[in-house]
């Protein structure tokens, strides 16, 4: 047992320092493409760290959203940037020297070191044992409608936060559309191998998504993870040139984007009227309500992430500047 603990500690140390080292290389390397690749690697190592910290739900979210979709967004933006920016085109990916004067750089560094020291001191002053809210969560878990505590917190105990969270997602797509115009996906690469790969993978992804959604009630998983897998399946289909949706004006797609937040609001209003408190589910029906919310949220999250990816691929429409 002792030996296992030692190995685990060694692994933790290696993982922690790798994370820091990767972040350092990512942020201070002169090659943007390399930075993005390092970012994705960083995200995957973060996912391992979440597993080590007994947070498998966060690990799933990190791997799919943090590393996967953010990575896809960054790659797609970088490809676009390269067509816009000549300095990036010329093979040797660029970087202008740091703009700061050497002295300013050292001042910034000194400030960072001091801040790190202060924060580290504060962290180390925390008690080594603290129950947090774990007792409260565990004692109320039975009346939450689900047996997986993370899902209970997200969808029941702190469901109001998740409602606002869905509003943030809706805002993000509204924002990207209003900034970038609303045209369809741009360039498409097809290849027979990619097509076969996608034909095989997309049903599997959809199945995995449904599984994660279902399993979220009693094990790691849930709407955010399921939604991001669904979004990933969509991204693959779009990349292979499938005319998935006409994202431009589709009423259906708007409905899918709104479904999750709308379900939350409808249920909040319903419970406000019936129970007197927003998102207070009657214990007997809590499981059904949560499953309904999660299903619609999964659809919305998947569609939003896909639409963010497609939106970031599009050319910006020259905006009307008559007021400026």
């Amino acid at each position, binding site marked *: 047992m002792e030996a296992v603990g030692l190995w685990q500690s060694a692994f933790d140390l290696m993982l922690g320092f790798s994370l820091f080292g990767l972040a350092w290389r990512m942020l201070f390397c002169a090659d943007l493409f390399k930075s993005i690749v390092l970012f994705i690697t960083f995200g995957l190592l973060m996912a391992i760290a979440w597993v080590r910290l007994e947070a498998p739900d966060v690990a799933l979210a990190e791997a799919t959203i943090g590393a996967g979709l953010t990575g896809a967004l960054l790659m797609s933006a970088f490809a676009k940037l390269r067509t816009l920016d000549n300095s990036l085109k010329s093979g040797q990916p660029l970087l202008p020297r740091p703009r700061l004067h050497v002295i300013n750089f050292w001042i910034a560094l000194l400030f960072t070191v001091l801040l790190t020291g202060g924060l580290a001191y504060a962290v180390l002053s925390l008690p080594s044992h603290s129950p947090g809210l774990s007792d409260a969560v565990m004692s109320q878990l039975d009346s939450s409608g689900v047996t997986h505590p993370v899902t209970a917190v997200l969808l029941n105990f702190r469901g109001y936060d998740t409602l606002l969270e869905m509003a943030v997602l809706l805002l993000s797509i509204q924002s990207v559309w209003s900034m970038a115009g609303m045209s369809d996906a741009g360039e498409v690469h097809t290849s027979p*191998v990619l097509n076969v790969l996608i034909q095989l*993978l997309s049903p599997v992804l959809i199945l995995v998504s449904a599984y994660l959604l279902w399993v979220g009630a009693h094990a790691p998983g849930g709407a955010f993870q399921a939604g991001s897998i669904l979004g990933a399946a969509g991204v693959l289909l779009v990349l292979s040139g499938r005319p998935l949706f006409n994202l431009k004006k589709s009423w259906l797609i708007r409905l899918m984007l709104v479904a999750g937040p709308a379900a939350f609001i409808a249920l909040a209003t319903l419970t406000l009227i019936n129970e007197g408190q927003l998102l207070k589910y009657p214990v007997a029906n809590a499981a059904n309500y949560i499953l309904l919310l999660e299903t619609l949220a999964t659809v919305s999250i998947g569609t939003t992430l896909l639409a963010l990816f497609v939106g970031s691929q599009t050319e910006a429409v020259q905006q009307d500047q008559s007021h400026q």
Partner: protein
Amino acid sequence: MMLADILTIILLLGGAFFFLAGTIGLLRFPDVYTRLHALTKADNVGLGLIVTGLAIQAQSWAAAGKLILIWLLVLLAGAGVSYLIANGALARGVAFWKR
């Protein structure tokens, strides 16, 4: 220590060896194509050994089945993506390594 445990240890060590070899190949081989070769071959076999080693320890057939499924998916994705990378490199005129 059961026979199954010993088998698992051997398989896991074997898997780790293949991962190590693949990683060294990735770092030391001279061009994109040879690196891909090192990576996919080694990773696929290495993961296969690790999955087999873990499947022996699995509590149920379903868990073992999931592990095998993961391996199959990685095989599929690895093969597909390697082809795409190699194809992309070829299309961009990345030269072959010559001794």
